[in-house]
């Protein structure tokens, strides 16, 4: 709150009166302040209920829903899983998840290019968080817009399928820099795709100063999921045992 004029939530550095009838106001506020505040509120909801919330981002069709299906098959007996689906046009992804016996909330309103914290807030209140351990938020398939919007997740997981080129991190640096874990999806196809080099993919990711772990995974080969499942367990343990880890959330965000 500005003390000199009382404008809501804005801390002014100065009020410069220019020519008559004009006023220049110094503001210095994040344009995404509203979204960031809502995201912080979402994160409180998740943390309070001991839920680990993960934001899944990738190009369209990189295998987000398939990975979730395979993850539910592998961990459904260990963790109580819930999913928020960001596919705004159809119920298809939510239906696939529900077929696995897991609650899925479909986000139905908003712009079709990204999720924001308010949409996730609406969705999370349709879930019984107290009965969940893990919440996956499947973002809209898009490597640009989702990167700018914090949803309140504890970590970002980016999928890079081996069919889309190992230079994607260089082309979409904002999103891949914000990823806390990168999965090279559809790894069963690596043997057929001769120009995808996991090593080059890693070099592009390190060039973004991102220390994130990188695992190849295939939804078609359950045994390939082991490192991913282990990462999930470790994250969940850390979440349950430790206080909410502020350092992690900052690392997960591009704009703060």
């Amino acid at each position, binding site marked *: 709150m500005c003390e000199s004029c009382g404008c809501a939530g804005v801390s002014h550095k100065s009020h410069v009166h220019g020519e008559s009838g004009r006023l220049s106001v110094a503001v210095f506020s*994040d344009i995404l302040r509203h979204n960031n505040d809502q995201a912080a509120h979402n994160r409180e909801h998740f943390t309070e209920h001991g839920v680990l919330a993960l934001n899944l981002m990738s190009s369209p069709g990189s295998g987000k829903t398939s990975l979730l299906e395979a993850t539910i098959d592998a961990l459904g007996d260990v963790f109580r899983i819930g999913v928020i689906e960001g596919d705004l046009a159809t119920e298809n992804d939510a239906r696939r998840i529900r077929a696995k016996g897991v609650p899925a909330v479909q986000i139905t309103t908003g712009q079709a290019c990204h999720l924001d914290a308010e949409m996730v807030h609406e969705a999370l209140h349709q879930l019984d968080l107290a009965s969940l351990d893990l919440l996956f938020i499947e973002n809209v398939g898009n490597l640009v817009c989702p990167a700018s919007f914090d949803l309140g997740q504890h970590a970002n997981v980016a999928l890079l399928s081996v069919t889309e080129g190992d230079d994607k991190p260089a082309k979409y640096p904002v999103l891949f*820099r914000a990823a806390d874990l990168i999965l090279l999806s559809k790894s069963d196809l690596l043997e057929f795709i001769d120009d995808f080099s996991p090593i080059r993919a890693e070099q592009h990711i390190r060039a973004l*100063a991102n220390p994130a772990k990188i695992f190849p995974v295939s939804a078609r080969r359950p045994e390939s999921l082991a490192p991913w499942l282990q990462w999930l367990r470790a994250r969940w343990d850390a979440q349950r045992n430790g206080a909410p880890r502020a350092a992690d959330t900052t690392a997960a965000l591009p704009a703060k």
Partner: protein
Amino acid sequence: MHELALCQELIAEVTRIAAAHDAVGASRILVMLGPLSGVEAPLLKRAFLVARVGTVAEEATLEIEQQPLSVRCTVCGAKSEVTPTNLLCRTCGAWQVEILEGDALLLKSVELFLDTAAEDHPVEQKAAAETTSAQLGNG
């Protein structure tokens, strides 16, 4: 396009500020953008032309100040000016760097028309507004 969503947020903020100052409109909005913000300046400008219609910012210009992108190496301690796809330390090549600046997405300042101006200089203001939209139309 998330630029439109951002402009709507931006204008909502400008609207709050204008209301708090009893202003009738905004004439100039200054935003600082870093290369790691995920926002493209030309797209933001174009989206602004759409988003401002019918708002307190209808006659406002949007100015964008580009924030430089720099990192500090946690291995050798050097500071480097870098690019979004290559944040590596320019001195030793390490990727273990921290961002010093370059991810800003900030509303820096707003210039407002106060109520008195609307009554005292209606002609001047209208003229100013016309130049503004003409300039934007060309850009």
